C-alpha cells in the first residue's frame, strides 16, 4: 500500500515535466506579450522593446525554457511580472477563496445530486424519476456563468439577499465568507449535482438488478436497508469517481464563476495572467492545478478500499 502511494506520487514528476513544458511552450507561442500591456496603448515600439529587455523576455525561447526548468528543480516558480512577488506566494494568497468555493460547491452538488439519483433509481420510470432527470438535464445544460448572472439578478438586485459580487476573507468572519460564497457555490454546484445525480441513478439501477439485492429483499430486509445499506454502498465506486472528477471540474469551473462574481481566487489569478501574458503565473497555476488533479485521482483510487474490501493496491 505504502509503496503503491509512493509510486503514484513519483509518477507525478514526469507528468509535471510534460505539463510544465506544454504550458511554457503554448503560452510563449501564443501571440501577445506582457511588455506591450505594461507600456499601454499609446506607447511606441521602442518603449515596448525596452520593457521586453528589462523583463528578460528577449532571450531565445529555448534559453528561457532551460531557465524555467532550472528554477523548477529548485522548487521556484519564478516571479510574477505584474504582481511583483513570487508566483508561489501569489498562488498561496489565492488558494483560500478557490478552495472554499470548490468545497462548498462540492458539498452542494453531493447533497443534491446523490439523494436525487437514489430517489430517481428507487422510483424508476415514474413521474418522480422523470421530473428529477428532466431537472438534471436542465442543470447539465445551463452554463454556470449564465446561472451566476441570473442569481445576481434575482437574489442580489431584486431580493437584495446577497452581495452582488466580491469575497470576504475568513479573517473578517466566517459568516461573511459564507454569505459571499453562497451564490457562486450554488452556481457551480447545481450544475455538477445534475451530473452526479445521473451517474448515481444509473449505477444504482445496475446494482438494484443484482441477485444479492433480490436475496436481501427475499430474506425480508426493509426496503430502506436494501437501498441505503446494500445498494448504495455498492453503487459508491462510480459515484466517488464522479465526485472526484466533479471536484476537479469545479476547480476549473471556478475560473469562470470567480470572474463573474469577482472572487480573487486562483481562477481570477490565471485569467488576469492570461490576458496580460504574465507567463510565470500562468505556468505556475497550470502546474499547480495539474498536480491537484493527480492528487484527487489518487485520493479517489484510495477511497475505493473503503467501499469495496476486494480492492487491493500493491
Amino acid at each position, binding site marked *: 500500500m505504502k509503496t503503491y502511494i509512493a509510486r503514484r506520487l513519483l509518477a507525478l514528476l514526469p507528468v509535471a515535466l510534460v505539463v510544465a513544458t506544454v504550458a511554457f511552450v503554448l503560452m510563449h507561442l*501564443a*501571440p*501577445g*506579450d*506582457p511588455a*506591450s*500591456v*505594461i*507600456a*499601454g*496603448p*499609446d*506607447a*511606441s*515600439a*521602442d*518603449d*515596448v522593446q*525596452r*520593457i521586453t529587455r*528589462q523583463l528578460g523576455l528577449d532571450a531565445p525561447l529555448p534559453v528561457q525554457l532551460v531557465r524555467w526548468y532550472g528554477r523548477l528543480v529548485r522548487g521556484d516558480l519564478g516571479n510574477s511580472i*505584474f*504582481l*511583483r512577488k513570487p508566483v508561489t506566494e*501569489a498562488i498561496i494568497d*489565492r488558494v483560500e477563496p478557490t478552495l472554499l468555493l470548490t468545497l462548498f460547491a462540492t458539498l452542494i452538488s453531493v447533497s443534491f445530486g446523490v439523494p436525487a439519483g437514489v430517489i430517481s433509481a428507487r422510483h424508476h420510470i415514474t413521474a418522480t424519476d422523470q421530473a428529477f432527470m428532466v431537472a438534471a438535464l436542465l442543470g447539465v445544460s445551463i452554463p454556470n456563468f449564465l446561472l451566476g*448572472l441570473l442569481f*445576481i*439578478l434575482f437574489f*442580489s*438586485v431584486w431580493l*437584495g439577499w446577497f*452581495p*452582488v*459580487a*466580491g469575497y*470576504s476573507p475568513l479573517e*473578517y*468572519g466566517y459568516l*461573511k465568507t459564507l454569505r459571499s460564497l453562497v451564490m457562486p457555490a450554488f452556481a457551480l454546484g447545481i450544475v455538477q449535482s445534475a451530473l452526479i445525480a445521473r451517474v448515481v441513478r444509473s449505477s444504482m439501477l445496475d446494482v438494484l438488478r443484482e441477485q444479492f439485492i433480490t436475496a436481501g429483499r427475499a430474506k425480508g430486509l426493509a426496503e430502506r436497508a436494501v437501498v441505503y445499506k446494500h445498494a448504495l454502498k455498492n453503487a459508491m465506486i462510480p459515484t466517488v469517481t464522479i465526485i472526484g472528477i466533479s471536484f476537479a471540474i469545479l476547480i476549473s469551473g471556478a475560473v469562470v464563476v470567480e*470572474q*463573474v*462574481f*469577482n472572487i*480573487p481566487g486562483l481562477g*481570477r*489569478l490565471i*485569467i*488576469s495572467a492570461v*490576458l*496580460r*501574458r504574465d507567463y510565470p503565473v500562468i505556468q505556475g497555476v497550470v502546474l499547480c492545478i495539474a498536480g491537484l488533479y493527480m492528487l484527487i485521482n489518487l485520493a479517489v483510487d484510495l477511497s475505493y478500499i473503503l467501499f469495496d474490501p476486494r480492492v487491493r493496491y500493491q
Partner: protein
Amino acid sequence: MRRAPGVVSAVLALALLLAAAAVPATAQEQPRMGGVLKVAMIGEPPTLDLHKTTAVIVQQITWHVYETLYTYDKNYTAIPLLAESHAVSDKGRTYTFKLRHGVKFHNGKELAAADVVASLQRWGRLATPGKQFWKNVEGVEAKDPHTVVMFLKDTSGALFMGLARPNNGAVIYPKEVVDAAGDNDVKEIIGTGPYRFVEHKPDRHVKLVRFKEYAARSDAPDGFGGKRMAYLDEILFVPVPDVAVRLAGVETGEYQLGMQIQQDQLDRIKTMPGLVAGIIKPEGWSTAVLNHKQGVMSDKRVRQAFQAALDMEPIMAAGFGNKAFYRLDPGMSFPEQPQWHSTAGGELYNQKNPGKAKKLLQEAGYNGTPVRWITTKEYQWMFKNALVAKQQLEATGFKIDLQVVDWATLVQRRNKPEAWDVFSTGITFNPEPAFSTAAACGWPGWWCHEDKEQWMAAMARETDVRKRKAMWDKVQQIFYEDVGRVKLGDFFGLTAVRKEVHGFRPTNEMNLWNVWLK
C-alpha cells in the same frame, strides 16, 4: 481594523438618515467629509508607476496620489498645480518655474526643486510623451530649493500642456524614490496628492486614504485645477471585469461608481431610482489604423479607396447602439475643443462612394490580396465597427481578412509591420494636438509624411495660438488627403453613478477629489 462593506454602508445609511432628519434642507448641499467610495474599474492596473505606462486605468487611479507641475482647467488649457508661477527668458528658450511652498509628500518630506528635477528627467527618459517632449529639452536644473530652470533647444508652444498631461504624465516623485527605482518600477507609491496610497491587493482593490497634510491650492476649483479637496475618507478601486456585474453592483449600492458601462444600458440606468448616468463626452474616436510601412495599404490609392468606400452611420450605429453615444464628425480634435476643432479635409470623411473606391482600386491594380485587419472583441465596438466596415469594403472589391484576437495580442502584433494591414483602435481625447497619437509618425501605422512632420514640428515650436490652429488645420488636411488613418466617428462613454455621489464630473481622466458622499 477594517470593517466589512455591508456594515459600513449600513452605518452610513443610518448616519445619512439621521443627518437628513437633523439638517435643514438648505444646508444639505454643503459638501460632507467622510465615507468610503468604491469604484468598479474594468480591470487591474498593469503598474502603479505613471512614468512607465500610457494605460488609462493607471492614470485614473494614480493621479489622486501623484501630482504634476501643471494641470488642465475646465477648457483643457494648462494652469499651475505644483508650480506657483513661471518666467520665460532667452527668447522663449529658458523657463524658470517657482514651486509652491509648504507642499508635502506623503512621507512627510517637503517638495523641493531636486524632486522635480529628478522626476522630470526620469519622465523624459522613460515616458512615451516624455521622450517626445525631451527632444526639445537641453537640460533642467534646481536653482534653489523652490526654483527649477528648464533650458530648451527651441521655443515651445506645448510646454505647459506637456507638463499638465495626466496620462503617462510628468508626475513628481520624491528624489529618493526616483533614485532607488532607476528605470525599474518605483518601489514606493508616494506623491503630493490629496489621497495617499495604502495598498494594492491584486484582483481585490487599490486602496487610497485622505492625505491629512495635503497642501491644497487656494484658488477656486477649475476643471482639474484650483483647490482640490479630499472629502472622502477612503477610495477603493475595485477591479470588476464583467460589465454586467459592474452595473448590478452600482445598482445595489455595492459600488458607487461603475466605469465603462455598455452604452446600450443607458435606458436601463434611467429607470433605476438610485442611479444617474454620467456621459463622458467626448471619450475618443474610433479608427482603422492603416499600415503605411509595408503591404497593400502602403499604396496611397488603396488607402483612398478604403476611405471612400465607408458609410460611417451604420458602422458607428453597430458599435455604439444609442445615438446619444456617437457622432459623425471629421475633426481630429473634437467640437468640444473649439480652439482646435477643424473641418479641414472634411469632404473626404464619410464619402459613402463605392464607385470611387472601385475606380481607385482598379487604378492601383489591387489584385484581391486579402487585407489583414486585426480587431478585438474585448472592446465590442471595435469588433462591430470592423464587421460592418468589412461588408462595405468587400462590396467594392476589397477582400478583408478580419482577424479577431485578444487585446494583448493586438497591441503586440501591431508593432510588427509585416503582420497586419489594418488594426482597430480608439484615439482617446487629447487636449494638445502636438501630442496627438493620431498624427504621430513613430506610432504603429508609421504614418510619416514630409509635409505633415514639418507642420507638426512647427506647431510644437509655435507659441501663438492662432498660428498653431492654422497649422493643425494643415495637418488634418493632409490626414484626409494622404489617408493617415481612417476616422470612423466620435464616441462617448457611460459611467454609472449613484445619486449619493456629489461633485462628480464624468471625464476620461476621472478625478475623485472634490467628490463627496451625501
